């Protein structure tokens, strides 16, 4: 197979601003960013509570979340499909095959990643952080925020990881989004579709964007950690 020609075409599509291609990129990015932005505060708070508070069943919740990390996304897609389908309990909202359905799926996929990373970060934090903050007059919430700030890079690694997972996820997005051009077609579903049609140029272009996004985010995180040289 000639790889040169599809690659040349891929860069042509990217550089000429092909509207169809950029629409796909846009759908992927905004849905993923919104899903993570909505879930991150909730999961970080939940993760902090799981790490710090003692309650019955705490260990079981952590084990369940860890198990969810490796849960097949296509099964998550199936469950959400059933919930959102016309005869499902949430069918009245008419969300199936919309970007919102994909976002719900992404939120479910991101939940265990964000929470488990936070639990791990907070459990790994020096216990003197929280105590020092409390002793200097911080309330419980402020002391919790101080602790999270001290382990922010570990928490941010969770956010980056979750984003990387959802932005490249295909099974759930395909099932609940339907891969509708201009509406729910995103980078991974478009790559799968174009490749199955033997149209490699768009797939290569989108793959290039996906890899650039992944590398870009990790470089940004490393840069922030480097600034933490202060830290």
């Amino acid at each position, binding site marked *: 197979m000639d790889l040169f020609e599809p690659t040349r075409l891929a860069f042509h599509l990217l550089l000429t601003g092909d509207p169809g291609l950029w629409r796909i990129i846009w759908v992927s990015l905004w849905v993923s960013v919104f899903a993570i932005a909505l879930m991150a505060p909730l999961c970080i708070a939940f993760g902090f509570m799981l790490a710090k508070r003692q309650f019955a069943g705490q260990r079981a919740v952590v084990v369940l979340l860890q198990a969810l990390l490796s849960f097949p996304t296509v099964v998550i897609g199936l469950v959400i499909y059933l919930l959102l389908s016309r005869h499902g309990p949430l069918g009245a909202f008419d969300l199936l095959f919309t970007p919102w359905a994909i976002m719900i799926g992404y939120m479910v996929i991101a939940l265990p990643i964000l929470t488990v990373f936070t639990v791990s970060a907070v459990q790994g934090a*020096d216990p*003197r*952080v929280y*105590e*020092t*903050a*409390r*002793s*200097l*007059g*911080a*309330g419980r919430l*402020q002391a919790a925020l*101080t602790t999270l*700030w*001290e382990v922010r890079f570990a928490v941010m690694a969770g956010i980056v990881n979750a984003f990387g997972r959802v932005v490249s996820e295909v099974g759930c997005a395909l099932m609940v989004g339907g891969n509708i051009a201009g509406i729910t077609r995103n980078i991974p579903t478009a790559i799968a579709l174009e490749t199955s049609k033997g149209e490699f140029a768009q797939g290569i272009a989108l793959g290039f964007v996906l890899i650039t996004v992944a590398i870009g985010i990790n470089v940004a995180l490393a840069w922030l950690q480097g600034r*933490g*040289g*202060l*830290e």
Partner: protein
Amino acid sequence: MKRFGDRVLFDGARLELEAGSGYVLTGANGTGKTTLLRIVAGLEPSESGRLAFCAQASTVLDYPEEWRREIVYVHQQPYLFRTTIEENLEYGLARRHLPNAERQARVREALAWAGLAERRDVPPHKLSGGEKQRAALARAKVLDPTLLLLDEPTANLDGDARRQVLELVTALCIENHTVVVASHDPEIIRLAILNRLRVSDLRIEAVE
């Protein structure tokens, strides 16, 4: 009273502190000096006990939040937040919602007091052990607490670092703060300005 498995500490023990006085807690390792300081600071849950502070009474189970503004505990190995020394000192003042100008003035004064004025922008990991301890003392002093609890402030220090911390601890007592120091350091124990209290599992007693 504090229970560690079968072991019970301070059952029926009583500790009374006079405002403006300095105290040193002595006693063998594991007798509960640190635990006692942490209970007073509201950092260590304990089974039962009553506390009275500034004409307000409470129980250890219901530690009043406002006391945390007046009672400051400094760990044996203090934790400094991952930012500059200056911002570490500002942390507690910010929690008290003091105006920015006052915060800056108090931080400058405390940094000079601890001999860290030149190190204000330095992150904690670039400080020596002695400098970290002095920064922690300055971070506590800047808040002007009613009661200051210091856990082994000279442990793991020697030479000049230990001498400088000793001078700061002495200065805090002379400045009329109410200070309680848990220590094994003979030089701290011998400080004339400090009242000596011996801690054992069951009681806390004054030593002449």
